[in-house]
């Protein structure tokens, strides 16, 4: 309500006379809305809209009251007051033109629902098809984006694109059970060991297993062959068929682990001195207002930016923020035995956690921490159980039958 009053303009009127009630009733009869009506001894004050002022004047004349404007408020009065301030008018026009021009270009892309396909991957893909920050929103064809994304990403089962203001929203649903392109034709492939180790378990679904649990294998050794022998009743191989070997093979391998930590290290001790700079960033251009890092010898920098926006969908290509410099002094410290041990154990635990996330089981860890001169060393071996296998194509000669067997076979047929 207050917003409308400000847009259309309103005036506070001061009515002087004794017949206040008559004035109010006539305003009521003429459907003039009165607000904040204050009654004094010989006067009346009220707020009315600017467009009703002339009617109120007529009423005041009829009722023998004197009316005057006490206060004016609203855009019509501001515009009238500044009508000759050309720079102000030009500024308002330019501002509106700037906002309008900004609304024509894309300034933000938001992806939702993606987990396997990361935002940078999708952003790069959109750039490759000509959709990027700064391009005209009118040129963006959402249907075309949806179609291309469905075609180019097999993982995507559903995609919706929508442009709101200068913001492109892309919602994606991924196929969680997708495991790469399904091969339409079977290519004969062997499973080979990618590292030396001992077979911990082997479950073959397709192909001929050449090793069993407990066997020691070398890097490059064929574990499951993609060649399946077809034998006759006497056990003689009469044909060979190529298949894609498929098996779960777990190999126990030894991984040599070594890590070092210097006894002395540098630590940043912050002095508490800071310098704050205001920053305005437009694209790659940055305007910094402030002293910079003057007077600070060594410092860390922290940047905070906020993109300006008119509403949730209309972003401006300008970010404002601040850069804070924190001064520090490097000081040399010495690790105690416990501290060094904790740091090295922490690093090892982090590595084991990463291996676990990759599906590697840790069977054993034989690691020792010792000090040699000024260096703490963590050394040993990790026993890992993991599917250390790769696939390679079956060589053509593996599938070929020996000449003698072919001739024997032909003889049998002729007999």
């Amino acid at each position: 309500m207050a917003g409308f009053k400000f847009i259309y303009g309103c005036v506070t009127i001061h009515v002087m006379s004794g017949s206040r009630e008559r004035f109010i009733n006539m305003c009521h009869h003429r459907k003039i809305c009165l607000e904040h009506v204050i009654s004094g001894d010989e006067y009346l004050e009220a707020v009315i809209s600017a467009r009703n002022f002339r009617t109120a004047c007529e009423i005041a004349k009829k009722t023998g009251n004197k009316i005057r404007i006490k206060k004016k408020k609203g855009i019509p009065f501001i515009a009238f007051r500044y009508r000759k301030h050309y720079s102000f008018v030009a500024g308002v026009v330019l501002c509106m033109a700037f906002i309008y021009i900004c609304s024509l270009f894309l300034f933000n892309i938001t992806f939702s629902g993606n987990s396997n396909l990361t935002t940078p991957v999708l952003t790069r893909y959109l750039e490759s098809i000509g959709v990027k920050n700064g391009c005209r929103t009118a040129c963006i064809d959402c249907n075309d984006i949806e179609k291309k994304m469905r075609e180019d990403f097999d993982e995507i089962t559903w995609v919706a694109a929508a442009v709101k203001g200068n913001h492109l929203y892309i919602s994606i649903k991924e196929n969680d059970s997708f495991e790469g392109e399904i091969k339409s034709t079977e290519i004969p492939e062997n499973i080979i060991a990618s590292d030396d180790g001992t077979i911990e378990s082997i479950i073959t679904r397709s192909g001929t297993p050449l090793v069993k649990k407990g066997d020691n294998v070398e890097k490059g050794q064929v574990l499951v062959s993609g060649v399946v022998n077809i034998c006759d009743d006497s056990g003689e191989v009469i044909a060979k068929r190529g298949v894609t070997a498929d098996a779960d093979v777990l190999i126990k391998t030894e991984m040599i682990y070594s890590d070092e930590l210097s006894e002395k290290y540098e630590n940043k001790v912050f002095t508490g001195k800071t310098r704050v700079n205001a920053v305005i960033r437009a694209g790659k251009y940055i305007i910094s207002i402030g002293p910079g890092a003057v007077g600070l010898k060594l410092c860390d920098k922290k940047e905070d930016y906020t993109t300006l926006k008119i509403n949730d969908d209309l972003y401006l290509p300008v970010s404002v923020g601040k850069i804070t410099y924190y001064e520090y002094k490097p000081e040399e410290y010495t690790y105690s035995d416990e501290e060094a041990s904790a740091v090295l154990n922490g690093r090892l635990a982090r590595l084991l956690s990463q291996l676990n996330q990759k599906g590697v089981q840790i069977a054993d860890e034989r690691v020792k921490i010792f000090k040699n001169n000024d260096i703490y060393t963590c050394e040993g071996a990790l026993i890992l159980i993991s599917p250390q296998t790769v696939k390679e194509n079956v060589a053509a000669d593996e599938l070929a039958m020996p000449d003698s067997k072919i001739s024997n076979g032909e003889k049998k047929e002729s007999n």
Partner: protein
Amino acid sequence: MNKAETARSLGLPKDVVFGMPVINITGDMQVVVQNFKSIVSYETTEVRLTTKKGCVGIKGKCLEIEYLDDDQIQIKGIICIVEYENHNRQK
């Protein structure tokens, strides 16, 4: 069938059918009167309105018309009494 019977049988609100005043009082700080006709007097201690059912007097302190349009009037201040004046309705 007269107006009252029609309104009763159709379940229509009486303020719409008869133009009866509707008075809403919020605590002792605000009174809103709908379907009023005109203002008889307006002082800081008393506001008197005419309605179809007679004169309604609102007495109190620091009374001020907050809002007035063709349908309703909103009065704020410290409200003490809201009464129908010269009202002799027989049941």
